[in-house]
């Protein structure tokens, strides 16, 4: 029995041994998540964390909420099913860059098309951590991390650009060693009504000796401290929209010398998938699939199919 009294940030921790390597960027993400949940006053049972497979995939076991550690690359479809079955849940998906942008790229793209109200945190470390450091889809071509026998032969994808092309309505970049900032991003993402991506730059000291804490430290800067405005509303004019889009793309691409962290895109003009469903299924929000009583206490079905069946009557 989990109680809802006296929750402190550390009440969001579990007593499962956190088996990440010392200095791993995953710790910062976990802490930010604990803090964000606490600041949002989420009760443990209001939240479900879905994860994929990888070092990052272990996250749900370390958070005192419902936690579903799914399959490699499949966290979004699992999360989608749960969220659709009960749209009142706060659903957070947490996975690796290999998980989400390699094997899971098809789900990434297609989840973007739905704009379900959920939050997706990517641990972007440039490597497949748990399988010992092969290049992940975000590693730049030609980079040779210590885990690679040869320089990376494939080019990288840009997760933010991909998110934009796929329809995400909230696109942010965080840095796992800037916990206060990341915590704020997570809070905003969770509060955003729609599909929110928080791509977190996450140093992997064990395998990625290129994009290290030092490397990022010299480059990241907070977008909030500039005059960048990521918000698109129904009132944003066509020209203004083009401008926003242009600056978004440039900021998303910027990498070698400066890397922006913060909210890069926030589109308030798109209705959520839940809203779309509700407009087709009037009872959806009141009696969603996970909840709708399917039988009476005796097991008698509540669905009355007689009118449908009658349409097949011949005698």
């Amino acid at each position: 029995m989990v109680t809802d009294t006296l929750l402190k940030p550390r009440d969001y921790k579990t007593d499962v041994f956190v088996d990440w390597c010392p200095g791993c960027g995953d710790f910062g993400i976990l802490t930010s998540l604990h803090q964000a949940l606490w600041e949002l006053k989420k009760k443990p049972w209001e939240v479900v964390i879905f994860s994929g497979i990888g070092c990052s995939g272990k996250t749900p076991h370390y958070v005192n909420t419902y936690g579903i550690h799914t399959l490699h690359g499949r966290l979004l479809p699992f999360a989608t099913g749960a969220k659709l079955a009960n749209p009142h849940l706060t659903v957070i998906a947490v996975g690796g860059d290999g998980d989400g942008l390699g094997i899971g790229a098809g789900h990434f793209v297609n989840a973007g098309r739905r704009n379900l109200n959920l939050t997706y945190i990517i641990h972007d470390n440039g490597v497949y951590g748990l399988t010992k450091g092969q290049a992940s889809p975000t590693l730049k071509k030609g980079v040779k991390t210590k885990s690679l026998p040869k320089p990376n032969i494939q080019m990288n994808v840009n997760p933010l650009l991909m998110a934009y092309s796929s329809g995400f309505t909230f696109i942010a970049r965080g840095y796992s060693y800037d916990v206060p900032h990341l915590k704020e991003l997570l809070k905003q993402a969770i509060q955003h009504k729609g599909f929110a991506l928080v791509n977190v730059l996450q140093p992997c000291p064990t395998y990625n000796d290129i994009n290290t804490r030092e490397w990022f430290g010299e480059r990241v800067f907070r977008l909030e401290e500039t005059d960048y405005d990521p918000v698109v509303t129904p009132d944003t004019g066509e020209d203004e929209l083009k401008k926003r889009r242009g600056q978004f793309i440039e900021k998303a691409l910027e990498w070698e010398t400066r890397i922006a962290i913060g909210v890069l895109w926030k589109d308030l003009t798109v209705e959520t998938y839940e809203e779309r469903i509700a407009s087709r299924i009037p009872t959806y929000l009141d009696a969603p699939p996970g909840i709708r009583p399917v039988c009476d206490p005796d097991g008698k079905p509540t669905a009355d199919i007689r009118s449908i069946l009658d349409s097949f009557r011949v005698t």
Partner: protein
Amino acid sequence: MKRSDFAWVVGGPQGSGVDSAANLFAKAAAFGRLHVFGKREYYSNIMGEHSYFQVRVSENPVYSHGDMMHLLASFEAETAIRHSWDVLPDGGILYDPKVVDTNIERVPALEPEVRTHLFKRLNAMSLPLTVEGVLKAAEADGVCLFPFPYDDLVEELKREYPDTDAKVLKRMVNTMSVAASLRLVAFPFEFLEKSIQDVFKGKTKAMKMNIQAAQMAYDFVSEQGWDFSCHLTPGTTDEKRIYVNGNQAVSLGKILGGCTFQSYYPITPASDESVFLEEHENFPLTGVQEEALKWVRNPGNPGKSASPNGRMGSLLVLQTEDEIAAIAAATGAALAGARAATATSGPGFCLMAEGLGWAGNSEVPVVVTLYQRGGPSTGLPTRHEQGDLLFAIFAGHGEFPRIVLSSGDLEEAFYDSALVFNLAEKYQMPVIHLLDKALANSNQTLPYYDLSRVRIERGALLNEAPSANGYQRFQFTESGISPRIRLGTPGCIFYNTGDEHTPEGHISEDPENRDRMMEKRMKKLDLVLKEIPSKDKFHILGDPDGDIVILSWGTPKGAIREALEVLREEGHRVKFVQSRLLWPLPAQELKEVLEPARLRIAIEQNYSGQFAGLVSQHTGLRFDHLIVKYNGRPMSFNEVLDALRHILSGKSSKKVVLRRGH
């Protein structure tokens, strides 16, 4: 064969309305209180390739299609060319006199191999390589030819509907062919009219035009005074009946069975089911009780949800990006409390193997409705086969429990589609409902479903957090079943992982815990075998004391039943064990019913006799004969009958391959 048993075939290029014609014909017969069985054959194609429909009609129940054809209705060259050969000597062919000169060479959709074959036949008979040649060949066999000038009648109709699109008018040939056919067999027009009214409900103009077209065609035939020996007489039953196909039967069972979530990715022959469900996503509810689930109602809107009584309910259909996502989404929905399913066919099921294992490992009740089709690979996407059994049983790496249940016909399919959710929730494991193309694309008249037979059992699903401290999702229990709660249940949390786990659901690599968890999961299969009632394990049909036993599963049921009726008349005592629970295999019970027979025959629609092998493994019994088929066409009752007769004559080889059908 009783005379009242009548088989009508209509063919034409895909997209030209063959299905509508068949539907009109079948419903007319059904409204005429006859039993109907319809089978659809078509290419993996949208327009242009040949498709056809056999409608069998009888005063007695019909369970399958047959090889015979009493009347062939055609309105273009290809159908006549392909099917004329198979019309019975006393039967007839309705054809368009316009196409008689069409050269076989010039029918583009005919496969080169079919063409060569036809040339050989016609050349041997010194007949021209045209439709006429083909018809002549039929005539020589005693088949009656009925030239029907579609164009003239369409012209006539056009005069009455001058503003109507030529394409729409052209479509009337379907209705005309039906009307002409019904007139040929002297079936009263009123039933066709009723059928048209039913099919075009709400489309007044189309309805009117179709009735008129039908009347014209009917009258035209009357005027010809053609002599045709086959007559069809309306029946007299007062049984309440429906006429449905497999996708519909399954959909209806799902809705009634409390399915609230279905994910799918389009695939033949499964997706018609999902489309049907989406069309019927809102439906009324009855008898909803005030419940312990208030916590999940829209928190922003508590008043509105006070009582869902008398309200509408829904089944949410989600079209996913692929089948990997389909099973994952269904599993996610099941975790949140939905009775969740996904429907697919072989290629899609391939992509579900990993997800299935996750659900098995995390003990999630998820239903996979698997419509088998011709494999391997893309195979024969619109044709029939039962080739996926062993894959369904063993899909996914490692070992985890699952249930595989197969339905034999449209009656079972309905009730089973509700039942599978009970099994999934009671035993907390994935259930594969194994169906096939023949079932999906067959139509049948059935007694109105008995809705009161369906009861919902949700097993150990708790509506509220257990009051005891320390809820463990995978608590070790005597039965192996642990109480289950929904994601979001207040006062509780739980964990799931694809890894081996502790009772709390956290990753564990401890060998002792591993052994216990593995045993907890796998032993649930024993419980399944213990608790599932015998009727859900297998049906015994035919002569329960027969000294010959047939074992089969799935849709061959219909053909076997009909064949057995004949064999019984011929004095053979044959018992038919139709297996339904295919996994876990009720080996002991099967052994008991199979062992006493002096002759054991297995029948299934695949190459290797997959189920027979499985039963041999688990019972130690061998089969004397194996009747299989793998050419993509369902077994007709005639070929099953012939094969059985041959076996009974003692002259048959051990393995019999059925090869009929187009």
